[in-house]
């Protein structure tokens, strides 16, 4: 959701917008001539109610920009001055979006802290005026109402929202490393209570309309309408406006009270929060959790708590001042810049750069009902794709279908779906053991075991039964697509689609094109991926593509570090404290030791010494003893159903002892260990760009950030934090590091940390271990000319 936030900011200069707002234009404009020059906001008067319409020109979403801000001030002043008007309704002309937040470009364009603080203060001022408006203002919300949009809405006297799936309310600023800077930190706690407000601000979660009503964030709900005499969306907006006007009139006539009846629990909470001691305890508790979560290194959450505290303990004036100052400080941090950059990257990766495919994929077939196959099926059926899930054995098929059902059923438990919707979605899935129905398939995605000869066999089998237009996509993490396509009769229709496990949680999809892959095939694959809700990077074919290739040398280093006698638990804590979502040893267990071995061997053969380091024998021995990681119950750790605590697998001691290497003391400090891992990753990523595997650094960063995160399993309050972040930004969820590695991606990391410093590190390790650490040419170039940046 954050996603759609800042698109469309690009062009806001055209003045044609008023003409485009079909249907909703009010006829009797007051002060006509001045209005026509407004491009973001216009208003009309119905009876004695002013209907203010927000419509950022040439954009799918409304964003709070300077222009919008000044036009809003103008319009409100006119409304306040008019004798004819007694109340107002604030509504968007765009059916899917109220206001999606502040214009991110406007924030990134600010050069100084003062500039940002001033923006915040201006917004605070007008919203304060709005809050104290003598004429009641009703916010009529349909679609996303986020960030500054929500802050605007809660400054109004009354809020009415449509109970639509698209209608979400939230303050996601924290996900961009900032805080709600237009009075939100002050108003939200008063409106929904301190605990709920902190939860919203610290997690950035989106709140659906019905939940918002329960919380007291909105006062009335309006049901979306079906078709009538106009298209449903259009009529729903009209209806929302009609209802809002009724309420505006009621408020002006004092027939309706803007005060809400609070429930018992709410009253009790509110009462408890009046006791200073309880308040202190709440702040303390929340702060502790945030500190633990962020290791104290991520600045935004702590500042949010601080600002809220200031407002409550020292009064609103101090609160507003603190809010604007901290907002300025946060926006200027590297963390915020990195997250905003990531956000832009993500927006980019949500577009199909190949254009619309000639034929929409409606029938999908998936080969292999394993974890991946079933995961792909799950994200496909719930988007309405008719999906065949084929496996070789009934047991495998059953397991896969059960996985899909469970995934959907979990959503029912969370009330994101009704049981009826689940059933009707599940009926899009056909499980089978043969190739029946493949003649209708528009795309086949194979997710069989990573074995070239097996993949060749299924490719040939499938090509015998599918229609000519059908695309064959291979879900592989390392096998070169061109080798798979070598046996194809129609290599232009073969493409790689590398999903990440678990497919329903991991947002990334790496699409791999070969020399022969046609443009339309690529367009289709991207279209399917976007439909499945993925963030997509498109890379060229090569061993390990991009994500696996960057990970492999780092994994090799993990093995070497373990061989040097570092305890897996210590290694895990070193890597997580550097910003990786899971520890390196745990990562191997999660991926599967056999898979890691497979990949290490394959890529080791191709890239030779550069991918060396650790002894692959370690993995071989683990596999031979059946230590395959989580899936077999044992890896570096022991995994038991229902047991959260992870114990080291003591049987590993003998294996590690037999392969022990002497540590080199000059490169074995904690920091060195962290950097040995990271620099190998970064170096390989830059090399991928140098070799053209990657088209842009942005894709490289998105791939690293979204592909390497694992869903967190944290407890309590922090689990909620984790959940939200997983949805929005999967990997940042775990811990945030001063070095920004994980939430900026390798390229932005180089820009922010400095290419020279990285090259220095690499050279130091090169001296100790040799070629594996030789900086690649592009990285060296960047080190040599400090002005060179991946992001200008």
């Amino acid at each position, binding site marked *: 959701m954050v996603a759609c936030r800042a698109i469309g900011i690009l062009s806001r200069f055209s003045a044609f917008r008023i003409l485009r707002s079909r249907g909703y234009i009010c006829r009797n404009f007051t002060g006509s001539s001045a209005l026509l020059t407004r491009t973001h906001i216009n208003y009309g008067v119905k009876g004695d109610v002013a209907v203010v319409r927000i419509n950022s020109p040439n954009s799918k979403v409304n964003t709070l920009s300077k222009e919008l801000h000044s036009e809003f001030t103008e319009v409100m002043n006119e409304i306040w001055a008019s004798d004819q008007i007694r109340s107002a309704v604030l509504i968007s002309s765009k059916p899917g979006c109220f206001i999606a937040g502040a214009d991110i470009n406007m924030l990134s364009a600010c050069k100084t802290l003062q500039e940002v603080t001033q923006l915040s203060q201006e917004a605070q001022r007008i919203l304060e005026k709005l809050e104290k408006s003598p004429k009641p203002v009703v916010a009529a919300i349909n679609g996303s109402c986020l960030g500054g949009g929500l802050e605007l809405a809660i400054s109004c006297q009354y809020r009415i929202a449509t109970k639509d799936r698209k209608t979400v309310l939230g303050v996601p600023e924290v996900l961009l490393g900032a805080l709600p800077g237009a009075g939100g930190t002050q108003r939200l706690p008063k409106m929904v209570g301190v605990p709920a407000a902190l939860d919203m601000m610290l997690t950035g979660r989106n709140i659906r309309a019905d939940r918002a009503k329960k919380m007291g964030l909105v006062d009335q709900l309006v049901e979306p*309408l079906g078709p*009538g005499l106009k298209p449903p969306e259009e009529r729903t907006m009209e209806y929302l406006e009609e209802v809002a006007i009724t309420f505006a009139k009621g408020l002006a006539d004092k027939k309706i009270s803007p005060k809400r009846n609070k429930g018992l629990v709410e009253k009790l909470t509110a009462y408890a929060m009046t006791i200073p001691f309880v308040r202190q305890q709440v702040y303390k508790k929340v702060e502790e959790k945030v500190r633990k979560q962020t290791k104290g290194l991520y600045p935004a959450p702590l500042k949010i708590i601080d600002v809220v505290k200031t407002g409550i303990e020292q009064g609103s004036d101090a609160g507003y001042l603190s809010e604007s100052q901290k907002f300025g400080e946060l926006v200027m941090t590297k963390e915020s810049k990195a997250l905003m950059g990531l956000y832009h990257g993500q927006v980019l990766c949500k577009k199909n750069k190949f254009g619309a495919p000639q034929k929409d994929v409606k029938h999908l077939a998936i080969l292999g009902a394993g974890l991946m196959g079933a995961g792909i099926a799950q994200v496909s059926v719930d988007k309405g794709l008719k999906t065949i899930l084929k496996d070789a054995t009934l047991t495998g098929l059953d397991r896969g279908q059960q996985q899909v059902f469970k995934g959907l059923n979990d959503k029912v438990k969370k009330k994101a779906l009704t049981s009826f919707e689940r059933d009707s979605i599940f009926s899009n899935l056909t499980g089978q053991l043969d190739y029946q129905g493949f003649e209708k398939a528009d795309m086949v995605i194979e997710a069989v075991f990573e074995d070239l000869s097996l993949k060749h066999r299924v490719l040939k089998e499938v090509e015998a039964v599918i229609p000519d237009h059908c695309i064959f996509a291979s879900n592989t993490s390392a096998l070169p697509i061109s080798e798979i396509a070598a046996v194809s009769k129609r290599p232009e229709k073969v493409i790689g689609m590398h999903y990440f496990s678990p497919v329903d949680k991991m947002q990334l999809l790496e699409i791999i094109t070969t020399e022969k892959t046609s443009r339309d095939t690529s367009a289709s694959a991207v279209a399917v991926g976007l439909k499945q809700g993925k963030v997509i990077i498109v890379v060229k074919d090569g061993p390990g593509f991009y994500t696996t290739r960057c990970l492999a040398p780092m994994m090799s280093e993990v093995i070497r570090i373990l061989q040097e006698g570092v305890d897996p638990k210590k290694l895990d804590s070193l890597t997580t404290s550097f910003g990786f979502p899971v520890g390196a040893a745990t990562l191997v267990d999660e991926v599967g030791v056999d898979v890691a071995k497979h990949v290490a061997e394959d890529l080791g053969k191709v890239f030779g010494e550069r991918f060396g380091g650790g002894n692959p024998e370690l993995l071989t021995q683990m596999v031979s003893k059946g230590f395959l990681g989580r899936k077999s119950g044992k890896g570096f750790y022991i995994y038991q159903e229902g047991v959260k605590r992870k114990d080291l697998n003591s049987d590993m001691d003998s294996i590690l002892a037999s392969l022990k290497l002497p540590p080199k003391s000059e490169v074995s400090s904690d920091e060195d260990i962290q950097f040995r891992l990271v620099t190998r990753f970064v170096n390989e990523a830059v090399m991928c760009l140098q070799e053209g595997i990657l088209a842009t650094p942005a894709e490289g960063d998105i791939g690293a950030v979204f592909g390497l995160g694992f869903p967190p399993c944290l407890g309590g309050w922090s689990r909620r934090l984790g959940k939200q972040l997983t949805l929005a930004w999967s990997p940042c969820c775990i811990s945030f590091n001063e070095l920004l590695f994980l939430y900026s991606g390798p390229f932005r990391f180089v820009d922010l940390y400095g290419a020279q410093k990285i090259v220095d590190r690499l050279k130091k390790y090169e001296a100790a271990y040799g070629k594996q650490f030789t900086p690649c040419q592009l990285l060296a170039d960047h080190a040599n000319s400090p002005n060179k940046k991946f992001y200008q």
Partner: protein
Amino acid sequence: MTTILTYPFKKLPITSKWALRFAIRPLSCSSQLRAAPAVQTKTKKTLAKPNIRNVVVVDGVRTPFLLSGTSYKDLMPHDLARAALTGLLHRTSVPKEVVDYIIFGTVIQEVKTSNVAREAALGAGFSDKTPAHTVTMACISANQAMTTGVGLIASGQCDVIVAGGVELMSDIPIRHSRKMRKLMLDLNKAKSMGQRLSLISKFRLNFLAPELPAVAEFSTSETMGHSADRLAAAFAVSRLEQDEYALRSHSLAKKAQDEGLLSDVVPFRVPGKDTVTKDNGIRPSSLEQMAKLKPAFIKPYGTVTAANSSFLTDGASAMLIMAEEKALAMGYKPKAYLRDFMYVSQDPKDQLLLGPTYATPKVLEKAGLTMNDIDAFEFHEAFSGQILANFKAMDSDWFAENYMGRKTKVGLPPLEKFNNWGGSLSLGHPFGATGCRLVMAAANRLRKEGGQYGLVAACAAGGQGHAMIVEAYPK
């Protein structure tokens, strides 16, 4: 009225139309047409079809329709159904043994009498050799019962059918919760004391929470009243329009009742109570009174209220339908032919109650008629808002083009021919029984007011709909 409506059970519209195909008998119906002031010439003289048997309604009756919780409240559904059957026997004097088959519609089923048709027939003294079955299709259950009968006759399987419907909203099956049911069933199977004790130890107080019958559409969990309110909003039907329409329905029903036009009603002597002779939900009020009511579903700003919705009703209906030659051979003077009929279905969420809009043009096309050929419209009135939304949909080119795949709008039924003797809003709506009432109203109106064709249409839960052409039997 208020109380009645607040329980949004599924309101099902009932319409029954039969399209019968009969081989023979070109009917000359001209004479009666002249009686009507309509200048319009009918596009068709009759809807008889070659090589298909004509199906006729000999007569039909219903018990008085009562607000639920009144005089019928101690009965069981089969009691009501039996009353309708004995009323029919009395009215038509049909020998019980000639009835080939009995079909009833019902919606909320009493578990003990799930085949309520059979229980009622046995109690009413029908031969135990006459099979009976029960159908359910929400508010068009009775319509389904009739059309099933039409099918059996037209295909030559049967000659004489009794079709009807029943609903008793005064008593509804309230169940134990699933957890409690499971516990009780498991207890049944437990063999030892130990097993029993361990099962009993799993008991929790919340197991005792009862489970009410669904008051909502299963697929969307939305109550029908809520959907009707949204539908009215989608078509921009105002509260005032709805109240006016409801008032019209009550006024017309009152007039019809006073003038004795509701001749299908048979008195019912309720055991242990007084004889009930007429419908008790007809209450013409004033617009001012109605305007005072609060919205019943979408609060606080919705437009559907207790006063402009149909109320929960107890009642039963039954009718005797026969192959035309059989009826004539037995010396009957039939009331009407059941002609072409049509079932439709659409989106159960946003178009739940638009069945009549979809079904009407289709059944007219099938019969080769136009809107102008229809002399009596009998539409099921679940809610004022639903009827008015259907009107607006039928009158909209945009809707016809975008949702019905038609080039032009369906066209509006003329209000002066529409539900002239009241409708479900005022007479009541026992879900399973309304279909027969609609057909009998159409048939009786054609006889009384003159005219040849009647159109019956109804919407039903699940987003389904039905329409049927009723043709007056020549006098």
